[in-house]
């Protein structure tokens, strides 16, 4: 199969002589993530997944030799822009992919798109990029920020849970998560508490929470904040007594750090290592084999991003200068995605399922996440109608 494509690409290059010669050079992909600092652990998972994708593709993307240039944004938008500009000008990359943080993406995407190159977001889900700032050259293999809490809100609404206590860090994403929750959850909210971003100690808030006597808790605490919150929730004696529903809090990165304190906590997500489809089983099994641990959704999305690029380069027979054709090809989402077959919405964000995940202790003693049920089927984000793009 790949050989045919190479043959095709060769034929094309003979036909179009000079410009095509350049296309026989390497395909270059710039991959921006966070490699340093406390959040560097996420970047490690993403990079490992990109490398696994390259392994699976025989170290060729769309049949072309490939070079992936990794860049570290240090979680800072200005650094992200610097890195992207270096990739575009110095390395002449054909695609830029990656990026964990919405604020970094909001700064980097216009730079990449402005240079006429395609940006493939593999985590950040900033709402403007799904809505009125959507762009032909911007694709996402993850989600819009609001979708995950929307799924949790739907689940809580459907299961008739009432009197919930809401906690999130006091910054844009925290407020977005609560807004997403409330778009589908119409029951009573006992209290909405916003804590300082990066706060370490939640004992004061947990004491207040217990005094209010809610029926359930909804929390959004990504990264280290989540680890601290889950530990302190357990130490306060609430774990197992007061149901905790979270988004972006319990994942394959935080579970090894909190162990039993994560058991029984419910998450909403578009993906899980146990999602049943051939592409995902291959990804998860080989990831475990190669790196000796479970992958996390950040990695799955990054693996997916490389596969998406591969499908587009293949479809255009290596003519990566033809961005129009690349965009047309990417819109088809014609590749084995880790989420199973899916379609892109008009705003280049996936229309996809969302699941309820439970954190379970297996007989082996390992703690893993398991899909319990499908909350949303083919869920569209709430911003696509603001996106003027039609195709």
């Amino acid at each position, binding site marked *: 199969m790949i050989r045919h494509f190479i043959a095709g690409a060769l034929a094309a290059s003979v036909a179009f002589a000079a410009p095509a010669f350049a296309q026989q050079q390497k395909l270059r992909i710039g991959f921006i993530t966070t490699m340093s*600092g*406390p959040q*560097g*652990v996420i970047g*490690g998972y993403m990079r490992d997944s990109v490398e696994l994708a390259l392994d699976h593709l025989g170290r060729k993307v769309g049949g072309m030799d490939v070079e992936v240039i990794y860049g570290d944004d240090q979680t800072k938008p200005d650094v992200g822009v610097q890195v992207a500009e270096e990739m575009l000008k110095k390395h002449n990359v054909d695609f830029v992919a990656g990026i964990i943080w919405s604020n970094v993406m909001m700064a980097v995407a216009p730079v990449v798109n402005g240079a006429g190159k395609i940006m493939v977001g593999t985590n950040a889900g900033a709402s403007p990029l799904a809505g009125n700032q959507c762009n032909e050259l911007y694709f996402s293999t993850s989600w819009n920020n609001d979708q995950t809490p929307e799924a949790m809100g739907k689940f809580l609404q459907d299961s008739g849970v009432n009197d919930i206590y809401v906690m999130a860090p*006091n910054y844009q994403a925290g407020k977005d998560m609560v807004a997403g929750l409330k778009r589908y959850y119409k029951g009573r909210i006992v209290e*909405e*508490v*916003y*804590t*300082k971003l*990066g706060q*370490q*100690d939640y*004992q*004061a*808030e947990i*004491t*207040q929470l217990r*005094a209010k006597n809610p029926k359930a808790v909804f929390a959004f605490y990504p990264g*280290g*904040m989540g*680890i*601290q919150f889950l*530990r*302190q929730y357990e*130490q*306060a*004696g609430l774990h197992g007594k007061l149901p905790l529903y979270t988004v972006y809090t319990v994942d394959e*990165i*935080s579970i*090894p*750090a*909190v*162990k039993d304190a994560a058991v029984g906590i419910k998450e909403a997500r578009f993906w899980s290592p146990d999602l049943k489809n051939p592409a995902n089983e291959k990804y998860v099994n080989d990831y475990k084999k190669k790196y000796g641990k479970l992958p996390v959704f950040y990695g799955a999305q990054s693996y997916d991003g490389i596969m998406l690029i591969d499908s587009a380069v293949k479809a255009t027979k290596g003519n990566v200068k033809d961005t129009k054709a690349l965009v047309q090809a990417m819109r088809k989402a014609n590749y084995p995605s880790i989420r199973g077959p899916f379609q892109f919405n008009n705003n280049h964000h996936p229309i996809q399922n969302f699941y309820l995940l439970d954190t379970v202790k297996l007989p082996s003693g390992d703690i893993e996440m398991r899909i319990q049920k499908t909350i949303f089927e083919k869920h569209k984000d709430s911003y696509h109608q603001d996106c003027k793009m039609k195709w």
Partner: protein
Amino acid sequence: MSWILVFEQLLNGVQLGVTLFLMAAGLTLVLGIMNLVNLAHGSLYMVGAYLTLAATQWTGNYFAGVALGLLGALVIGMLVEVITLRALYERDHLDQVLATFGLILFFNELVAILWGRASLYAQLPGWLRGHVELFAGSTYPVYRLSVIFVGLIVAVVLWYVVTRTRLGMLIRAGATNRTMVAALGVNIRLLYTVVFGFGAALAGLAGVMAGPIYSVQPGMGELILIQVFVVIVIGGIGSVRGALVGALIVGVVDTLGRAFLKPALSTMISPTAGEAAGPALASMLIYLLMAVVLALRPAGLFPARG
């Protein structure tokens, strides 16, 4: 709002204060006696947490792990003093900030290389994991109670050492007039190394106790360091008593602010005002407090005379 709730929040505040005190005690002595701005104090906190985890795993015993972790923090603190900081005492504060900031980067990367960037799991012995009933319907984590207990013991021991022993006398003298202490024939170099080492061990102890509550990961020290600087500015630089009082004030004010500011604003002004201003004001509260203290008593509440 019941009195039990207020009491529980006060306890939370004292517990936070005690952790801050352990960090602040070492930092204030180093700043007061050696006139050294040590941004890397948070790194020693991190080193204490990591070494304890590693030693606990290695020995299989929590207390052996803690003992080794503290010893390790002490030794590493002394090594840092001898190898890098000695050259900095005569330089101005900006050079010290630059060099100790470099140490932060060094330690964070070293820890990331040795243990990885992912947060580690800190195991507690079973009896420390539960919670006790203080009053009917009000439970409190045993571990947090023991943190308060350990912190207060350390405070008493420090008070004894600083006010009742010869070493303490030298420390106080050094904070007041170090040239005179050196002129009297005291080996000020050795004194510096010892003080720095014990400051490091105290920071390490704070790190040990923070391990099971917070996230043990590279860069954990910087998250607490800013609050610690607030504590020593409020308490007065160079004063252990100031560090204790400052830490307790900061701990209690921060905790009560987070717990009660929003409901208080909501009832006093309007629910929307509480909603909007409460969380923002609560996270600023200790800095506002610091500004007020600086305006009224620029040298802090308990300035070391000098």
